[in-house]
């Protein structure tokens, strides 16, 4: 323990610059020098990172390292939190999403989010999926809406399981089904980026496997940013991995490189299980 603390402190501030290539070609989201504060406390410390098209990028790191905070910045879910302040630039397709003139409603339609705990609305399965298209006015007739709901449930791999009970409450499904319902709900709006905040942490291994398979399929069409606690999951799902530590982005790289040959001492300590 003693030595560990020493090691950490010897690495120090000088060594907390991000290691690895943070940029990609033709990125979907471009983050530059992002700081996030909760009141006086700094939660994210100058993160610069690109998120590419049709890739799954995993964010790993010990608890409280800021990975969820960072994720929630990408569709401004932090707006609702009192005293939360974001500086730096986050550009979605070249458009600054923290621009005062920018509207969060269409932004969130573009950048969807799936939460840690499945949170279906206390409505029927159908209504859960139809909610997004309805509020955004994406369809004009009932049959169109039916079509969107079916399509989204199919994409989420849930259609076969629920097609006979669309009118039953979404809260009656199992945990894994609920999470896929939430994914279907997100897809129904037609986003380009999907943020996932530890989507499997509340699920059992079998349900986790199904959701992981789904994420793998979705990669074809969407950019996916996934925060995870499980390094195996990051390794299985993602092309690139970013390692966060106490609000700093420590290392970014191709997933297999990060897991086999981390270049930063902190990343190595985390991967090899010395803390976390």
């Amino acid at each position, binding site marked *: 323990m003693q030595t560990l603390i020493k090691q950490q402190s010897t690495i120090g501030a000088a060594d907390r610059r991000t290691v690895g290539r943070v940029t990609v070609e033709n990125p979907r989201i471009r983050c530059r020098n992002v700081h996030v504060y909760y009141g006086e406390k700094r939660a994210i410390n100058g993160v610069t990172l690109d998120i590419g098209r049709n890739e799954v990028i995993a964010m790993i790191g010990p608890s409280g390292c800021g990975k969820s905070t960072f994720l929630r910045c990408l569709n401004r879910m932090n707006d609702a939190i009192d005293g939360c302040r974001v500086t730096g630039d986050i550009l979605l397709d070249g458009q600054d999403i923290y621009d005062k003139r920018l509207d969060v409603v269409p932004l969130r339609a*573009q950048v969807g989010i799936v939460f840690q705990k499945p949170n279906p609305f206390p409505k029927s399965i159908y209504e859960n999926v139809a909610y997004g298209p309805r509020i955004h006015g994406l369809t004009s007739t009932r049959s169109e809406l039916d079509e969107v709901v079916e399509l989204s449930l199919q994409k989420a791999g849930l259609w076969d399981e629920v097609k006979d009970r669309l009118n039953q409450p979404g809260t009656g499904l199992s945990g894994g089904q609920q999470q896929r319902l939430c994914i279907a709900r997100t897809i129904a709006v037609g986003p380009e980026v999907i943020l996932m905040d530890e989507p499997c942490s509340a699920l059992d291994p079998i349900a986790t496997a199904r959701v992981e398979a789904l994420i793998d399929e979705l990669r074809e069409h969407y950019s996916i940013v996934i925060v995870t606690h499980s390094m195996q999951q990051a390794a299985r799902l993602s092309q690139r991995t970013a390692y966060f530590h106490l609000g700093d982005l420590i290392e970014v790289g191709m997933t297999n490189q990060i897991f086999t040959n981390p270049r930063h001492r902190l990343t190595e300590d985390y991967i090899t299980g010395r803390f976390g």
Partner: protein
Amino acid sequence: MNNRTDIRPGSTMERVNANLARRYAKERRFRRMGMGAIIISLLFLTLLFSSIISNGYSAFWQTSIQLEIHFKAETLDPDGSRDPGLLSAADYSSLVKGALRGIFPEVKKRKERRKLYALVSSGAAFRLRKMVMSNPDLIGSTARIWLPADDDVDMLVKGYIDRDKPEAERRMKDFQIAWLERLQREGRIEKRFNTTFFTAGDSREPELAGIYGAVMGSVFTLLITLALSFPIGVAAAIYLEEFAPVNRFTDFIEVNINNLAAVPSIVFGLLGLAVFINFFGLPRSVPLVGGLVLTLMTLPTIIITSRAALKSVPPSIREAALGIGASRMQTVFHHVLPQALPGMLTGAIIGMAQALGETAPLLMIGMVAFIVDIPAGMMDPATALPVQIYLWADSPERAFVERTSAAIMVLLTFLMAMNAVAVILRKRFEKRW
């Protein structure tokens, strides 16, 4: 697949953007409705307070008329014996009348004279009697004394009677107004602080009516309520929170408490009438019965808040005490109760404030009588402050509107003070475990 059902990534933005203006308009409308609801409530609050205050503040001043009173020995004490019995039976109103005649010697007709005498309150004679009784040496002397004016005069001076109205439609006739104007010119009319309002009991004459009797009635009633409901409420809360086994009986008690908290207060009045007055034969109109009824009414509030206070004491404290061998009773009384007491007190004050404002059950048990005397104990007939407000609100005299409002101001002051104490207590002792 047509365009409308296309939900491929990014394909929907055009449609989303097209609907934005409409959705934001709806959002603004909704937000304005919420704001409107708040504004309506606060507007009403302001309206209520401003109308009460603008109607009531003037009651704290009472128009007085200065008269040269000659304490004639031949009227008060013809044989010079200074016997208190004779002194108290003497005709003091003739002194007032004489003084008025002295100022207006030209008023001769009987009818007009009566109007002239009516300028001064009928309570003036009582005041003179009190002065003489406490200081018999006044007899034979002459003094300039401020005496309360009649309520109609008071209303006129305060501007509540419209002088521009046709004479037939107002209570003060032109010649009376002329008298008053003369008195005013001579500096004999003044608005003085209305001590009567705070020191007298009820009266049919507005200028002699005060809230002291009703306040004392409320005080006695609340003393009984507090003395009974706080210990009983706390004991019930302790039992339910700390000792009660989970069974039907406990459930039944809880259902009862929750229901009683929502039973209309007038029903408690019926209970008091049927049980305390008719069955136990306690007298009507006394603070004792009022206190008993209000006790039953406030108990649910006190029990519920006391339970919340007990719940907020962390179990670790109980475990610590039990761990060193204290009995459960000792644990509760030595360790849990002291921690929960501020919260319980807060609840008790809020319950008392509720009881102070309660009127309906007191009507049922007869605390609405017209009572002039100041109650001296909990077995004397009494009213309570809110009941006094109700009684005055029913009186036709314009001057009672003013006094009702003033009594409401006093009542609200008491209530706000109690609530402020409760808030301070809560803030002061609020602990974060």
